[in-house]
């Protein structure tokens, strides 16, 4: 049950979110409607309520009535539309079910509004006013209490490591103090795609990378970022920072996950209020760097016609765009781009916590139609991506549409083409 206290907290949280960019964005919107055309929730449903700038109306009302002279005047005269508990309840599905924080609207807006960043801000108010979806509340609670949004414990990770070590004869280092790199994982990789861990071990062995996992900080995902609660996000980031500083590593590797990179690379230092003592790299950045410097050697390639799905958080929020393409050049002879790709790629439909929010399942499957259309235009046999969540959402969407296209992680693809020991370097 929400109370009067919750709505006050919600409004205060929204007030705290207003900064100069937000004020400039709201001042500049001319209601041209182009952001709707950038949003798969609008293009695939035709519902105008899914227009991105409409979704941030609660924040706009707070900005107008609290941070503009004219708005304050309107408020005094009783002409301002207030933000109420009912309003936030009505907006909850718009903010959580029909926005993946993909950021495509922010690329398209002709006046340059970063609408997606404002939706992230509205989520802070939603959480404070107790209007976040059950699925995300559950994931955040598990993340705080157990250490993983999916409830994955160290025991489960160790079991997976045991399997990989006995199957492959590789060693997966844990808690090695003074290693250069601390690798983080997402729960989805531990449970659904342990081949990622195996790929890391194979690649790092060949490239002679000094690395480790941490038994205290192995989870990279950050439910606080998805639900929009800085307090939770801060605590989760702090665990990684503590783990990395304890092992005195030089680098932390963000895994094949979109929002984890945003969380640890860009938002993390701001959340804890200081710069890190280590650097953060995405696994694709590291693989690219290893390949450029000649430490990572591959031979042969996958000849099937394949395409790369850019995870939104990596490309539009993270700036990792050229690396996967350079890597694919080495291991895929028949790589083609989707018509809109790179920083204009379309989201899988499950980012920003949408895939963890069961209430949104039906809508998510519906808007997958955008990806389906993109794939039909180029008719590929294989999809490659670099985010475990995109991968699961893509797999589910493809299956739902009876499309027989396997989805693989890029690190895994690279590891399958490593030059074997004793094989002559090309």
């Amino acid at each position, binding site marked *: 049950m929400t109370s009067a206290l919750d709505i006050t907290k919600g409004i205060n949280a929204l007030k705290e979110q207003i900064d100069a960019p937000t004020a400039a964005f709201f001042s500049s919107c001319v209601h041209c409607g182009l952001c709707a055309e950038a949003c798969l929730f609008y293009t695939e449903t035709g519902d105008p*309520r899914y227009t991105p700038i409409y979704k941030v109306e609660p924040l706009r009302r707070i900005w107008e009535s609290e941070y503009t002279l004219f708005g304050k005047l309107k408020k005094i005269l009783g002409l301002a539309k207030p933000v109420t508990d009912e309003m936030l309840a009505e907006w909850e599905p718009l903010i959580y079910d029909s926005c993946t924080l993909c950021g495509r609207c922010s690329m398209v807006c002709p006046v340059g509004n*970063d609408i997606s960043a404002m939706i992230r801000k509205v989520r802070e108010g939603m959480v404070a006013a107790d209007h976040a979806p059950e699925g995300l509340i559950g994931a955040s609670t598990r993340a705080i209490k157990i250490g993983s949004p999916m409830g994955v414990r160290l025991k489960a990770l160790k079991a997976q490591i045991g399997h990989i070590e006995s199957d492959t004869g590789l060693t997966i280092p844990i808690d090695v103090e003074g290693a250069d790199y601390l690798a983080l994982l997402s729960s989805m990789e531990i449970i659904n795609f342990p081949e990622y861990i195996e790929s890391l071990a194979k690649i790092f062995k060949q490239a002679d990378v000094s690395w480790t996992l941490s038994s205290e900080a192995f989870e990279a995902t950050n439910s606080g970022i998805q639900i929009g609660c800085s307090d939770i996000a801060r605590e989760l980031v702090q665990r990684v920072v503590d783990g990395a500083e304890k092992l005195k590593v030089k680098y932390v590797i963000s895994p094949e996950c979109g929002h984890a990179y945003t969380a640890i690379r860009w938002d993390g*230092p701001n959340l804890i209020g200081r710069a890190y003592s280590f650097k953060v790299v995405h696994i694709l950045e590291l693989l690219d760097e290893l390949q450029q410097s000649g430490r990572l050697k591959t031979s042969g390639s996958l000849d099937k016609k394949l395409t790369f799905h850019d995870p939104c958080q990596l490309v539009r929020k993270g700036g990792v*765009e050229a690396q996967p393409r350079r890597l694919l050049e080495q291991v895929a002879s028949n790589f083609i781009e989707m018509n809109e790709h790179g920083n204009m790629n379309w989201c899988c439909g499950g980012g920003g916590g949408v895939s963890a929010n069961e209430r949104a399942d039906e809508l998510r499957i519906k808007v997958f139609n955008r990806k389906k259309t993109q794939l039909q235009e180029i008719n590929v046999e294989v999809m490659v991506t670099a985010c475990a969540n995109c991968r699961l959402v893509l797999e589910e969407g493809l299956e739902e549409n009876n499309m027989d296209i396997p989805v693989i992680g890029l690190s895994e693809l690279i590891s399958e083409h490593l030059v074997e020991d004793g094989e002559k370097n090309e």
Partner: protein
Amino acid sequence: MELFSNANDFLLWVRGDAFNIALSIFVIGVIIRVLEIVLLGRKKEYSEPRGSEWGPGLKNIVSRSVADSGTFKRAPFVIVVGYIWHICFFIVLLLFVPHIELIHAMLGIKWPGLASQFIDASTVVAIAAMLGMLWHRLTHPVLKFLSTYEDYLVWLVTFLPLLTGYIAFHRMIAPYPLALGLHILSVELLMIVFPFTKLMHAITLFIARWYTGATMGRKGIES
């Protein structure tokens, strides 16, 4: 008319007191609005930057004027008519010789104007574009849904200077001082409404584009 004994008196008032009032509201209003924005500032960034802010911010101010091809295909009307309207409007505003003379008298700067038949044609095209945009706003599901009274008010106060300018130029209302006075009055209305509405985008879009370009530039994202 009771307020003015004749059209000349009306024109004199419009050019004098009314203009000064409108200009004051416009200038003070715009300054307040811009200060309201920039004084809010931004939180300190602790993450290690991948790129710079200033260059990409400035580049985004220019590059945001060009739509990506996918969006263009999905919404050609808004983009094409948007371009036509803005270009024609600025031609009329800045290249009509009497407008240049007014700016010269006020600010002391001048530039060559266009022959009046070009201005006349641009006015007609701008009026047609505005009617098209209004029709689009009233019929497109997203625009119809998003639009508030402000969108229509802004349309009206932008449309009136074009219409009255056209009427005055073609002497469609007599006497001429009345026609010219109505034109100037409509511009004054536009200036008064400007700081309180989305018309502010003409100024704040530079700030908005810069911030977004800078944020993305810092992260190494092509915006």
